[in-house]
């Protein structure tokens, strides 16, 4: 009777073989499904890209008008219009996702350090369920709260009449804005970042922290210079995951960011944070009733394809950011 668990010389006998085959098949089906998703989405998106070329990503005309034109032209297959220049949507996505990621990163890092080290016991015990609860609140509830609380607040208390007048010819400021979107999105993705950061910080070897303290460096600096530095892989992972979640957030942003395909203009000065816009995911949700019209369908899938590609790019960026860290022993 020999134990062949160490020698890998063939499939295991009998029921194990069947089990392995079945599970393996199931696993392949799921993988195939996910790969199919990539293929199908890009395939369905292709006509929109084909008609527009690289101008798909450029500016030119009002996005809202273009969307209307695309939709109505769907009745007649021969005269379908595909013209689409999505830059305002892309710019809005970049601003909102990027802004929220930065705000969330800073806040989450400080809160994570606080939870791991500096919070008194009662506050630490309070913060853990708070973070978990924030993570589980549905995005539509965040949207609802934003609409009924934050947007009127911004509209009535933050935006001055002067500010509104200064941009009246171009756009109306009514509280549905970049600021509201960034604040709520940052709030939404912070819990995820905090959880991952806290795990990363707790995994820092105690010897390093004690060693730093024993050298006469105060606990705050020790936590940042040694703890945070060591936990950099976790910081990267958390940022990538949370930003990807922010990228794909559709419903809440559709409610809060504004309903116009407008590209907020930093040249307007501080007022630009009050300008409405519409990121890609929100644009898709806003137009789901129009999926019946073929050219509209292709355009919407094209937006989805851009989102998918961005999420994949983000993942790759995270992987690339971890590479230099392997050198100094922070193998992730």
């Amino acid at each position: 009777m020999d134990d062949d668990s160490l020698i890998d010389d063939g499939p295991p006998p009998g029921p194990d073989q069947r089990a392995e085959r079945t599970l393996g098949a199931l696993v392949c089906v799921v993988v195939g499904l996910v790969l199919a998703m990539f293929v199908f989405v890009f395939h369905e998106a292709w006509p929109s890209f084909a008609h527009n070329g690289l101008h798909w990503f450029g500016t030119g005309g009002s996005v809202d008008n273009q969307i209307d034109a695309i939709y109505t032209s769907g009745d007649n297959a021969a005269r379908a219009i595909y013209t689409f220049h999505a830059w305002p949507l892309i710019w809005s996505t970049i601003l909102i996702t990027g802004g929220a990621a930065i705000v969330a990163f800073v806040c989450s890092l400080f809160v994570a350090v606080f939870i791991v080290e500096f919070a008194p016991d009662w506050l630490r015990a309070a913060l853990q369920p708070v973070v978990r609860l924030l993570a589980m609140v549905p995005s539509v509830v965040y949207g609802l709260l934003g609409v009924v609380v934050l947007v009127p607040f911004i509209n009535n208390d933050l935006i001055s009449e002067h500010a509104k007048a200064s941009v009246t010819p171009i756009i109306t400021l009514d509280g549905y804005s970049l600021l509201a979107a960034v604040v709520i999105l940052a709030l939404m993705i912070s819990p995820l970042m905090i959880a991952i950061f806290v795990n990363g910080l707790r995994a820092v070897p105690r010897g390093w922290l004690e060693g730093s303290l024993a050298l006469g460096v105060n606990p705050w600096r020790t936590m940042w210079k040694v703890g945070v530095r060591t936990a950099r892989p976790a910081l990267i992972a958390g940022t990538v995951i949370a930003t990807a979640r922010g990228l794909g957030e559709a419903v809440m942003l559709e409610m809060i960011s504004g309903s116009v395909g407008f590209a907020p203009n930093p040249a307007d000065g501080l007022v630009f944070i009050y300008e409405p816009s519409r990121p890609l995911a929100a644009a898709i949700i806003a137009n789901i009733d129009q999926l019946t019209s073929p050219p509209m369908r292709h355009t919407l899938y094209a937006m989805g394809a851009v989102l998918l590609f961005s999420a994949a790019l983000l993942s790759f960026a995270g992987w690339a950011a971890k590479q230099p860290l392997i050198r100094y022993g922070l193998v992730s």
Partner: protein
Amino acid sequence: MEFVTPPPVRRLTGAEGDIGRLNGSGNGNGSGHRNGNGNGNGSGNGNGDGHRAPAFVSARRPVAPATIAIDRMQVEDLSVDYARKRAVNSVSLPIRQGEVLALIGPSGCGKTTLLRSLNRLTELTKTASSEGQITLDGVDIATIEPTALRRRVTMVFQQPNPFPMSVFDNVAYVLREQASRRPKKRVLQGDVEEALARAGLLDEVRDDLDHAALRLSGGQQQRLCIARALAAHPEVLLLDEPCSALDPQSTKVIEELIVKLRKDVAIVIVTHNLQQAFRVADYVAFMYLGEMVEYASAAHLFSAPREQRTKDYVSGAFG
């Protein structure tokens, strides 16, 4: 910063058993180990009740005795409790620059706790409390801010713990974080090299100071930790079994280092290796079950200890 439990202390099991065998024994019976009086040979080292010094004592001490001794710290009646369990009981001893003080004793005797009290590292454990007084240059250390205290009284741990940075950054870490303005790299270069030289590591890493610290060998890492501690120009250097995780060659290098450093820095070393204590220490304090049983110069403690328990420990009756 606080941890709930006292830090884990790793004990090597093999070495302690060796001590018993080193007793220069002419007596073939087991009972001879238990009390010095049963020893058959009236040993020629001047101890009236027949204590036979361990064999390593007869080897001549390889280093010259200390020539200066400046009082640095004074421990007065110190007692430390971990959650009502007394770890150190009413200990008093002086710590002087120019001398190496070794704390010896079996596992759990409180020597590491005593060491950690010297730079208030015991405060990291929530359940710790202490009584008595420790003074540094005449000032009660309880009145000095802990972080400031630890710059003057630094510690090297049992397990080498270099940070995940380059060699240069490890040594410069202390200099950067303690300065009020972040110094430029050029300025630091000299100080870093000086610290590495004092730790005996400079020659080995001179060519590549950007080498990742975690890629060094164990002995080199420990010397790096010593260099790091020295970069702060401390007044007292605490060493918690610095060689127990290292090979004999590295141990030898570090022991020589310790003896060389004692002129500039007061050194306290905790060790369970009696030969090491004999090799490096000028004064030795033997602790047992939290109490300081005996404090004497190394020569006296090993060859002619006053207390029975000291005799038993030093001759290997228990470990």
